[in-house]
């Protein structure tokens, strides 16, 4: 099991139900493949540093959220495929945090971010 982090920027002004659905679906992808979702964290609606073009539209704001999970590397491929196609998602990146929990936790304490 490897610790991963999905950093996702989704469209702003999504209906709450729609946003919840998006998050739920991505979590289910991980869980159905035998992964464990550790943390779901909203980072808020933010002005993007530059304009994005995605799904034939220009975007200047985005809603950022984070999902931390342990899973097999094969799960990551599946996630990427689904998120690329989803019209609600502007940017996504799955980043490998590490293999040891201690390293990740220690770093978070210093910078004040909650894991």
């Amino acid at each position, binding site marked *: 099991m490897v610790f991963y982090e999905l950093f996702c*920027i989704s469209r702003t002004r999504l209906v709450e139900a729609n946003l919840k659905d998006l998050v739920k679906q991505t979590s289910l992808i991980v869980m159905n493949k035998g992964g464990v979702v550790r943390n779901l964290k909203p980072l808020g609606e933010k002005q993007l540093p530059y304009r994005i073009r995605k799904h034939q539209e220009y975007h200047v704001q985005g809603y950022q959220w984070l999902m931390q999970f342990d899973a097999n590397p094969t799960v990551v491929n599946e996630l990427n495929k689904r998120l690329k196609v989803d019209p609600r998602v502007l940017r996504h990146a799955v980043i490998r945090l590490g293999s040891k929990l201690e390293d990740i936790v220690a770093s978070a304490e*210093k910078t004040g971010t909650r894991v």
Partner: protein
Amino acid sequence: MLASVYRNTAAKSLKSLVPKVGGTSAVSSHNLVARRFKSDDAGEQEESRQHADSLLNIIANSINSQTSGSVANEQFRMARGNFHRGDIYKPSDLNDSKPTTYAPPPKPVDQLKILKLNPIVEYKNATLLSHYITPLGRLMSREQTGLSAKNQRRVTKAVRRARAMCIISPTAKLH
């Protein structure tokens, strides 16, 4: 002692050459001319007086330096190290105020190493990464950041990742 004698005689001989103000017939005989060009004449006299003074100084100094046991030489010897006859010195040797050697620059300290932070994990932390980019959003060199080679590589990777993920602007430092 001898030097002063020389100096006085030199001064006297030179002073006899300088015309005194408001004296001699050359000025008073031509009244009209003198009145009209009075200012010029006075200026000329003043100039020549000053010229003479400077000449005196030059001569006095040269006389001083020629004599071996003079006061000036003694002072020079005291000032900086040992000066011997025939030595070549530069003006800075006589000046005790500024040091000749400069302090070595301070050794750069790797902040991330001390804080035990992994910059790759902090790719989301725009505030942290903005310390390592210029106001125009460009990555700073290792000389500027003071990071170790390993951490510099990781910071570069984190910044490029953050740029791609729309966390940092590639052209500005916003946070």
